[in-house]
């Protein structure tokens, strides 16, 4: 498990980063936390000609919370999100999601940009961002552009990132102030990639009616899926248990789910329903869903 040889390029700012990318194109990989890239290189699953190390590009490392928009720089470490007070108050879904990412040691290194660029199917942050309908800002020497996350994550391990581009930051329209977020994941062991995960954010208006609802699922779905149809079913309903259960069943049946050797498709669908119902209960009714201790 030794990598093939490669050129190592360290960049100190965004201009140098863009220039290096323009120079190497798809012959280079970007090194941020390295938590996925380095093992893949050691297994020789990927053998890039060059590694562009952007860990010193400080302008990409921030959490900026405004009135109604949240910006997270691509180099923000998961640990930074995990420890952020403002994030836990203003965007609790991200706070809850990030605690499920591997183990703290990995979170000290892994970054928002890194996990988004990889788009691994069980990954928690891309699911949270998809649920919040985030925008992704990309930059190259040619231009800066903004893509909706649904146009950025195309499928499992597949994004719209061009060879000469890097992720600058993500932009999230903040949910209402009193929203409740739930992130429910099932995995074999603590810290593993999710077999199935559900992210829900719900907020009631002053009359106590459910006025805001965002739902996303991942785990065998390729890209994370925003369950817009289910949002509509639930918001327009009396929130009866039967309505939610039927809605979950019908909409999960309607999305594409991929089985594999370890977890067959019918099992995944069944478990997706389970975690989704649990997440909906918690976010909408604030019920204490007890998870296995």
């Amino acid at each position, binding site marked *: *498990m*030794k*990598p*093939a*040889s490669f050129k190592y390029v360290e960049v100190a700012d965004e201009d140098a980063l863009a220039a290096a990318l323009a120079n190497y194109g798809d012959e280079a990989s970007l090194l941020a936390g390295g938590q996925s890239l380095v093992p893949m290189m050691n*297994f*020789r699953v990927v053998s890039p000609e060059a590694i562009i190390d952007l860990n010193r590009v400080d302008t990409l490392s921030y959490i900026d919370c405004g009135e109604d928009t949240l910006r997270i720089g691509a180099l923000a470490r998961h640990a930074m999100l995990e420890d952020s007070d403002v994030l836990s108050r203003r965007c609790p879904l991200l706070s809850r999601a990030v605690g499920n990412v591997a183990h703290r040691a990995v979170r000290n290194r892994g970054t928002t940009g890194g996990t988004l660029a990889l788009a691994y199917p069980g990954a928690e942050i891309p699911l949270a961002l998809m649920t919040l309908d985030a925008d992704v800002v990309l930059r190259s020497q040619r231009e800066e552009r903004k893509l909706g996350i649904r146009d950025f994550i195309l499928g499992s391990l597949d994004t719209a990132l061009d060879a000469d581009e890097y992720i600058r930051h993500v932009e999230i329209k903040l949910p209402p102030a009193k929203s409740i977020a739930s992130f429910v994941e*099932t*995995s*074999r*062991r*603590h*810290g*593993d*990639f999710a*077999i*199935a995960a559900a992210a829900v954010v719900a907020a009631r208006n002053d009359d106590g009616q459910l006025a805001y609802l965002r739902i996303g699922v991942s785990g065998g779905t390729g890209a994370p899926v925003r369950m817009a149809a289910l949002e509509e079913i639930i918001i327009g309903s009396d929130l009866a248990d039967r309505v939610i259960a039927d809605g979950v069943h019908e909409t999960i049946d309607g999305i594409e789910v991929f089985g594999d*050797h*370890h*977890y*067959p498709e019918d*099992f995944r669908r*069944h*478990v997706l329903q*389970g*975690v989704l*119902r*649990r997440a909906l209960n918690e976010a909408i009714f604030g019920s204490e869903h*007890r*998870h*296995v*201790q």
Partner: protein
Amino acid sequence: MLPGDRPFPQIEGRLEDARLLFGRGRYIDDLPVATGTLHAAFARSSHGHAKIAGIDKSAALAIDGVVAVLTAADLGAVLDPFPSIVRSAPEYRGIATDKVRYVGEPVAIVLGRDRYVAEDGVSALEIDYEALPAVTDVDAASQATAPLLHESFGTNIVWKNQYRYGDPETAFDNAERIVGVDLKFPKYNSTPLETYGVIAEYLPETDGYVIHGNFQGPFSLMPVLARALRVPDSRVRVIVPQDIGGSFGNKAMVYPYMGLIAACARLAERPVKWIEDRAEHLLGSASGTDRNSRIEAAISNDGRVHAIRMDIRENVGAYLRAPEPSCVMRSLTTFSGPYRIESGAIEAACVLTNTLPTGLNRGYGGQQYMFSLERLMDAIARETGIDRLEVRRRNFLKAAEFPYLTTTGSYYDSGDYDNCLDRALEHLRSEEWEGTRDKLRAEGRLVGIGVATCVHSAASNIGYVTLALSPEERARKGYNAKSGTNDFAHIALDPSGRLRVQIGTAGAGQGHATAVAQIVAREFGLGVRDVDVIDRIDTETTPWTITTGTYASRFSVVVGGAVQRAAVKLAGHLRIIASHLLDVPDDQLDIADGVIRVRNSNRSLSLRQLAGATQWNRGDLPDESVQLHVSESYGASNLRSPDSENRVNAAATYGFMADFAMVEIDPLTFVPRVLKYIAVHDVGVPINPQLIRGQIAGGIVHGVGGALYEHLDYDENGQMMSASFMDYLCPTASEAPEMAIDHFDTQSPFTALGVKGCGENSAMSAPAAIASAVDDALATFKTSISELPITPPAIWRHVAGAQ
């Protein structure tokens, strides 16, 4: 008080800790290597079964830094197949010849100036494969129509045999009831932190080899290695590094790699070093066997078992390599476990499949057979309506019956199974397990409690290996019988008066040096840190036997026994010397607190004074031989070779384990979790409770791994579906349950220290206890676990199937 009656002195922590915890261990990768040493990387098969149509080395050889590319054809000039216990078994060379038979099988070895460039060489090799149909299931492989792994052998059933003890036919004919279960036990590994490592050199001046390898024994594999290398045993010098980072049976099977790397060194005329990486370890080291079996009991309606019938189909992987088929021997020799079962009929077959070849895996057949027997006991409980514990008690051997000779010839030394189980129940009650389970169930949670009661045979009799042969084969002229287990210890008083012990255990971090220091310290009334222990194996200078090594939990019985003997003998010699120096008969002398005292007097000599006088003033001592050092050997008692009825005493000692597990299953996600575990074991006499606790705790988590998480999983094409830690799931600290570990010890009357061996313990019993708990958790679905690992999809199928 005689020294043997004193308690063992204890220390907090271990003597080894200072070096291991501060990064000063010396593992194989830490050893300095000669300049010019080449580094090896293996090209390994990506196919489960394929012909090798051609290997083009040219691109690899063109890489700067690549020195050689060696295939079976090249190595054949200096390396023969490794001999098997079963003489007619298909050839095993450790590297593919014309075919590959499992993913990960070595195909070529690239030698380069460093590992990076050697791997570049591997990437550049062009190997042409012609895929063949593969077979990975043991029953499928047994069919006449299955793809053949070794065409000339004609079948994939590489070995089979039948064993009959007592009168099983009558017992089954007269049974009031017959209860049977079909079971599947999975293939998994031990995943030691440290992987295999070999550094080898050929010495043309003696036509011999020097091989450094983190090999744990048994050293019965040394003649196998020497024969493959075509040199006499005495020309293979094996040096085991001072520290090995875990083994658990796995590092018995580094010997084929020792042969391959040594042969490379000979052909390259330079030393060669190879450190296995984690990917290789999962694909290409060794694993435990997976087993499909059917086990049946002939019982009375009150649950008493009169006979067992068992049909074992054991997957040994793509090759049968020594010491297999020993994997099935615990299932024969101790088939009755802790129960009074007087008859048995066992059919066992080892089958070849396109999977990783097998070897020892912490328990070596123990976990497979304990799973079978304990699942059967639970099935008997279910079918008769008798409580699971009561059924076991009705069959338990009683304390007054020991020593007990089983129908297979195993001679159980001591035990008190009822009281040991009672002690475990005390923990269950004081921790309110049943109350907790009921409370959680009332909240809608799926929670269960399971049990396993098992006999742990330790310090195995090498004779059991020969059960692979028939009594007729063993009776033939020229056949050499095998039996026993023994080892050496050397103890000396150095010129400054300090005691130094030399042993050779090939330990892997169990704390052997500490335990040995405690044994010696007890004999001389010293503190543990007053004794130095060197644990080293260099076959050129360390006394060793073909049973030497750390396996079968033998250390405390065999090495401990040798150390005890040596300590007592040395103490005797020192009394003789002191009697001259003090001018009193030696039976008037006691050794305590490191001082030799004349009884009822204050005349004494310190060890330092005695050593000084003997070293510096030897001439003034009488001419009788004066010994300041002693070598002793210890061979366990009662170990003979098998008789003509296939009866043999499998091991020197027989411990006992009473285990309880509490498992919860999430009703929406079907994820199982072991919440709590109780293990009350009989280890005879505990030398060091900390060490024992560590072994049992590690064994519990290992058993959790086998029950729920770890699986070397192949698809029907022989592709490895768990080739990295993403998919091969070892339990982490978060998955470890709360553990209550306790003892109910009954001394062995047969061992020097009364000890019984400890190490494999709950690694063998936990899978059964956890399956039992899952049954209880899913009781409303009226289903029973017969296959491991118990994964969420598997649980879902049980639950969905019931609805």
